């Protein structure tokens, strides 16, 4: 699955996107965020406060209990501030 990062989450993680296989035991957005927090201190620092973390799966806003499957495009970003 492709993980895309935006705004200060992108800067914190230090990359625009990464391509990972669906990890064992990961079936929801929440599981995925837990998994990513274990990847590195950088991931953990910007993803651990879940209240600031918004997620889109296949370009649609979803809640953290939304399912994820291999092949999904998952985007992770802070609350939007356009307009």
């Amino acid at each position: 699955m492709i993980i895309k990062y935006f705004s200060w989450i992108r800067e914190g993680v230090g990359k625009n996107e990464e391509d990972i296989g669906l990890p064992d035991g990961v079936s929801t957005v929440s599981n995925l965020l837990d998994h990513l927090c274990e990847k590195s201190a950088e991931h953990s620092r910007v993803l651990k406060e879940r209240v600031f973390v918004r997620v889109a799966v296949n370009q649609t806003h979803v809640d953290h209990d939304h399912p994820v499957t291999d092949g999904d495009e998952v985007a992770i970003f802070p609350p939007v501030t356009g307009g």
Partner: protein
Amino acid sequence: MASVSVQEDDFDIGEEIQKLRNGRTDVGAVVTFTGTVRDVGGTLQSMTLEHYPGMTEAELERISLEAEQRWPLQGSRVIHRYGTLEPGDNIVLVVTLSKHRHAAFDAAMFLMDFLKSNAPFWKKEQTGETASWVDARETDETALKRWQD
């Protein structure tokens, strides 16, 4: 009838209205909203807008179609810029056409309220040596709630 653009270039409000009206004579009300880069303290150098290509267009189209289902519009247009902008520059344009003014006003407000909370844009302000991401405003979430009845 819904038309959305995500672009670096500036837009011309008069020209956008004219294209959307396209010579029609059954339109009674035209509402436009323009959001501009605001420098409250006189210290802002620039603002950079990051977005999520693909999803941005999809969200703006979804919101525009929702507006056209809720109100009897004769057309709508949303343009949102990205990239680096200066104080006073245009950021976003919403245009709505309707026979009646209340539909045109309500649809334009709805489009802006949803765009503010759902369109994947993030603003970063450059002030002197410091660049900082703009915080989301809780009032924007509150503004959304009034459309949920």
